């Protein structure tokens, strides 16, 4: 029992493939006393859908926010298309072809659907920089139709929409861009079964087109096995598993998480005086 308590979980070091579009090596990030990422390495191949798993607080969202330029890592490095990649801002990452759906969706409640869809990518007239609203409305309608989510009015504030519709808009904002890497942080969280299926269909369609590579955080392992080519699991700020989905199963993924929980509990009990 003492053995189990002290043995470290397996940590997967940097892995690579020749057609990587993105490589992340030894990323670490602390927020004051909290360590979000200890040592995370992963890679994303061209046209691949990578499922990023891990329990709440494992550091998944932090990793996404570092890749998309919203936060900076304390140490570690990233490579985009083989070149060193250190985004200065979200805009910078976007300019390099990385778009993100955040867990909190980053929607502006007071703004209309189409303004949200085009936030930071607005169309404007020239020479006076007035917003080209008609153009954006058409673009928004087209983008939403492509996804297949039914949003009757695109000129209403997004505050008036349902959770699923809001999530669809956040996804549409990402897909409706020139990005070649999409980061989706729990894109199905607020969705009903039907809307979720639509998003997964969309991901499958994007994968079939082969133009974009996707990192997707999901909680439902069935969805992971259905939609992803490969899974990376973060545990306690480290990568604990990196496998093609065909080589794993819901049982294995579940077992890793449960094992981690047991180990943590035993470690706590093993400590003098407990926690």
């Amino acid at each position: 029992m003492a053995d189990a308590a002290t043995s470290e979980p397996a940590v997967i070091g940097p892995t690579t493939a020749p057609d990587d579009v993105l490589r992340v090596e030894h990323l670490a990030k602390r927020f004051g006393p909290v360590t979000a990422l200890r040592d995370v390495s992963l890679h994303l191949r061209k046209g691949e859908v990578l499922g990023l798993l891990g329990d709440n607080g494992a550091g998944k969202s932090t990793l996404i926010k570092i890749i998309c330029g919203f936060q900076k890592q304390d140490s570690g490095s990233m490579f985009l298309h083989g070149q060193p990649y250190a985004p200065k801002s979200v805009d910078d990452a976007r300019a390099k072809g990385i778009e993100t759906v955040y867990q909190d969706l980053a929607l502006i409640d007071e703004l209309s659907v189409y303004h949200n869809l085009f936030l930071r990518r607005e169309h404007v007239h020239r020479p006076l920089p007035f917003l080209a609203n008609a153009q954006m409305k058409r673009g928004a309608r087209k983008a939403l139709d492509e996804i297949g989510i039914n949003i009757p009015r695109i000129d209403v504030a997004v505050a008036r929409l349902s959770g699923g519709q809001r999530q669809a808009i956040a996804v549409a904002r990402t897909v409706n861009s020139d990005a070649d890497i999409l980061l989706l942080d729990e894109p199905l969280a607020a969705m009903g079964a039907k809307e979720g299926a639509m998003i997964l269909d969309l991901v499958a369609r994007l994968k079939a087109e082969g133009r974009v590579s996707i990192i997707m955080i999901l909680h439902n392992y069935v969805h992971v096995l259905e939609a992803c080519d490969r899974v990376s699991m973060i545990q306690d700020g480290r990568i604990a598993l990196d496998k093609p989905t065909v080589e794993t199963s819901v049982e294995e993924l579940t077992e890793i998480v449960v094992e981690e929980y047991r180990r943590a509990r035993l470690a706590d009990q093993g400590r003098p005086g407990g926690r």
Partner: protein
Amino acid sequence: MASGPTESAHPGPGTERGDSTHQRGVPPGGGPAGERGVPPAGGDGEDPTRGRGVPPGGEEDGLLARVLTLREGSIIVVTLIVAIYFALNTSSFFTTSNFKTLLPYFAPFAILGAGEVFVMVLGEIDLSIGGTYLLAPYLFYKLATSGLPLVPAVLVGLIACMAVGLVNGFFIAIVGISSFVTTLGMLFTLEGLTLIISHGEPKSTPGAEVHVTTHNVEHVVNGHHIVLPETVNHIGTFAKIFGGGVYSELIWALVIVVVLQAVLTFTRWGLYTVSVGSNKLGAAEAGVRVRLVMIRNFILCAAAGGLVGILEAVRSGTVQPDTAGANEILFLGIAAAVIGGTLLAGGSGTVVGALIGALFLGILKDGLILQGVNANYLLFYTGLAIILAMTINVYVQRVRRGARSG
């Protein structure tokens, strides 16, 4: 018809702003207009359509419904009610001369409110506009009397105010102090600074000197021709443009309100302002440069305060280190924005609403004076009326929401 300049004078010290006798510091060219209580002279006759830019509510049901769907709809209705009340209860409310009297009661607050809207939509507040309002005319005075031409002196004064806004923005957006505290500190700092550099003494506004000329005007009385001298006051072009002209402040206010409303509604600047006020984290995640947006809006707001200070100094002819007056003007500017439908919580607001809110405050003050309300009661009634108006505002807004969702 001989005429010639006979003297050049500054208005006396009795022309402080905010006085209840409604004397304009600089009488507009062409006659002693704007005197309260005196029935308008024949030529200046009554114009029954004056002030009817917006038709009274209830004239058309369709129109009323449409007005109510506007964000400014409720305050438009409330302002109309107040205007109609005073029109029915006083004989001289809908007159040209009263309209001219009304102008300085609302135009400055419309400009202040317009700047404040940009900060309040962010969910912040700027109390330091009282400070820039007070400081800018003194800087202008110092610069102009030390040899700088008038317009560059105004511009440098405004740039100094923008620097104040930049400092506000730095402490709020980057250091992370709340805007209320930062700008309160800045308000006291600037007011104190003004007292220091002015030694607490009022000064004559450069460029706002009044030139008095005497004309001999021929009158015909009972068939006899009589020539009588009449004095006419003139102010320079600079003063006419920067607040001294009768409609100068109104034109400034309208232009600023139209431009800033267009910026808020139709440009990325406005879109990002709403975004930051509605969801700061989300805006940042989407790539909006939140700090830049915040600093920019505080610069705009501070500049609005400084501009109003200079316009009012030129209008009244004196630069006054009156901190109490500045504080009242600051709060009336904020009140105009709030009454106009801009939420203190941020995310929503209209510049046109601030104009109408200022108009409401102006009509209220003017109407109460017309009704002969004792000067001591003025602030008391104004306060009650603001609360009443906001109550009506809330109810009308509920009707509006109902109309929208139904």
